[in-house]
């Protein structure tokens, strides 16, 4: 037996319930029809005109870019040092590390990441990254192809993402912290 709603609030509530019902059944159907594909979680962000990403598991925190002390005589990619959970971390210019020349806007965010060797550092970024996924197969294929620290991976909707391999990136820049040796 269908009950006729008596008030406007009750009517809206019923509509919302129906809407949620429809969405739920649609999602259930999708789950039954598609074969679940392994995915790689990433933190995606813009860098210049392109889209870049880091493996989400390497991301430890996103902080506002402040309280960074510049380090005179350090390498050009070193923005400065900051304090994070009692440790002193280096804040690095990601654009500079990747051989770029700048950002569209001044970075306002620092991403604290694991460099791949257990040490943490902070990378500057225009905005807080967006968590999303890439097909694991595409990531593996790109990794096999790539020689440098940046892998080109296409998303399911054919968008190009530059996935950064932090371990490779930092092993390539190791030992270049000083501008002027003694």
């Amino acid at each position, binding site marked *: 037996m269908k009950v006729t709603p008596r008030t406007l609030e009750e009517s809206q509530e019923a509509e919302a319930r129906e809407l949620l019902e429809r969405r739920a059944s649609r999602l259930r159907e999708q789950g039954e029809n598609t074969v679940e594909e392994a995915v790689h979680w990433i933190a995606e962000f813009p860098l*210049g*005109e392109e889209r870049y990403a880091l493996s989400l598991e390497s991301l430890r925190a996103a902080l506002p*870019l402040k*309280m*960074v*002390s*510049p*380090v*005179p*005589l*350090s*390498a*050009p*990619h*070193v*923005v*400065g*040092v*900051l*304090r994070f959970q*009692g*440790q*002193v*971390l*280096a804040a*690095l*210019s990601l*654009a*500079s590390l990747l051989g*770029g*020349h*700048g*950002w*569209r*806007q*001044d*970075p306002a965010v620092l991403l604290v990441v694991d460099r791949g060797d257990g*040490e943490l*550092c902070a990378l*500057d970024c225009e905005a807080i990254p967006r968590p999303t996924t890439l097909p694991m197969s595409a990531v593996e294929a790109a990794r096999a192809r790539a020689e440098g620290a940046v892998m080109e991976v296409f998303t399911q909707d054919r968008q190009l993402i530059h996935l950064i391999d932090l371990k490779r990136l930092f092993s390539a820049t*190791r*030992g270049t*912290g*000083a*501008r*002027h*040796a*003694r």
Partner: protein
Amino acid sequence: MPVDPMLQGLVAGFAVEAQEVVQKVTMDLLELEREGLETDALTRLYIRLGRHLHTLKGSAASLGMQDLSDIAHKLEDALAPLKANAQKMPRSVVDILLHGLDLFLLRAQAHADGRGDALPDPAAALAQLVADAPPPDEAAAMVAASGEEAAVAAPTPAAPSESVSVPDALPESADAGWRVSSWQVTSLMREVERLREVRLRVEERGRELERVAVLLAKEGLLAETAEARTALSGTARSLRTDGEETSDIVDALEDGLKAITTRPVRTILDPLQRMVRDLSRQLGKEARLSVVGAEVSLDRRLLEKLQGALVHLLRNAVDHGLELPADRERAGKHHEGALTLRVEQQGNLLYLEASDDGAGIDVEVVRRLAEQRGVVTPEETARLNENQLRDLIFRPGFSTRTDVTDTSGRGVGLDAVRASVEGLQGRIEVASTPGQGTRFMLTLPTDLGSSPVLVVRVLEQLVGLPMLAVEATQLARAESLRLGKRRAHLEYQGQLLSVVDLGARLGLRALAPPAEGQPLLIVQSGGKRVALVVDAVVGDRDLVIRPLPSEVRDVPAWQGAATLSRGELLLICRPDWLVTETVQAQVSAQRRALVVDDSLTARALHRAMLEAGGFTVHLAASGARGLDRLQSDTYDVVICDLDMEEMDGIQLIAKLRERPETASLPVILVSAHDSAVARERGLKAGADGYLSKRECAAGRLLAEVLDVMSRRGSRA
């Protein structure tokens, strides 16, 4: 020989005590062996030696360790004839006494470990000791060069009362203390360090409260806010008092923990005296080790790790560095080689120097042997300079010995020393002068606890200096400065000290002589001194200096960073870097750019781009600071952000165009706005060029800078 189970608990403590006493005896013996001591000093040494041996004998007997008591007794016997006529002790007697002490310690440790039952009968060892000892009359005769009648003393058994004498100072029972692991103590120290940082923040909160009270008074609401202001001021006062009490507690906690976690460097250096003596005897050489700074206290773990490296460096110095006495005399040197260990701590850095006055390192020999041993190829050595060739001694597999001896020749040595120093995040360097000697310099971080730091300011940059390196502060006065064409000197205590501008040294500004009244700090390190020019002395703080991350650890200017009251980091400058002479770069021929931008990352990126293009780049974080820089320095081009707080790029250009000296200075505006309107507005305001951040990202900055400079140049 079993120890009474009732006394076993005390034996471990005895072993530790015995080790300390034996160390003292060893030092006395080495001193007695040397020439040139006054009779009074000799007498005092003999008396002290006798007392120490007696303590060992009495303590061992009271714990029922008769074997140890007998050994100590025999050593007393060997000493007795010499005490009567205090003179330099013959080497053979020193050998016997040292050997006896080794025997004593080995057996004491075995008792402490509960292995007393398994020890061989001491009779054989004692008989050997007695057999080796010169007869009393001979021993006395050895020292009685003056012909005085030697006191012949037959071995006298200890008096019964002596053999049961109460030990001088037995350690407390094990039950009286706690056994804690090093990480537990280190964790506590970390908490104390954090507490010190919290204390700094609380201090800042107090200052903020006081500022609020002042602001309320300025608002013209005096009557309405009177009660609130009184309450705020009262809270600020209480906070200050509480803060001072907290400071005292933090100091006491840190001192207490430091007493537990550290010990004087002397504890690892004293045993090295014996090692140097034994090794030089074995090699037919003569050596004397002097130690400077042995009272510095360091983290016990660091000391343990350092000991091996020091042993190796000293063995190397005796074996490879020092010449045989006859060779030394032929070279006009004293027959006894001089080894020196110098220890100095500044802030969180430990400087350790091991030097000898031997033959020095022959770079040609190093090159030849490195090639022969396959450490490097001749092609590689051809490319190396003298310092790099000398550094080959740190490569694995390198040895100058052609034969393998007990001491060296296996090619495992300095590479292991370097590995252990680098394992402690330290650095090792070597300097050598042929015929004059060799110096190994170790720099190591010591990161426990706080240290006093002097905070100074240069332009906008705060910099910390380890207080131990700052000898004095004074203001620059024309009459005490000597200004040359390329550098200035300060007349200080009858010496001329180089004047070093910290700002220029850090690449923050161009080199200029100090202005009248500018603060000068006399900074010393490793015996060198300079007069350091800063813009302001902010004050001194007790700060916890933490190591820098690997990305900036190699920058020689910095030794660490400390947290200030608002959570920002203060970089701590290395005094040894400040006092090191540098070749002044010929910057006059280089083009100079000033980047004015309130974004730290934009400044860093522009700097990178321009430096890559051969520019010397200085930075300013605001329009006002940019103007300040332009008043004291000259630049070929200014790159300026359009959107800045307080004074934007348009306003800065207007100010520059007003002043004759900067009216025609090329200025490029950079902005996130990429519209034609914004571009037109910028150019209309007097900018020579306009770039969007997007264009900068595309790599246009350097090209635009060169283009603008060339256009200005052609117009001029």
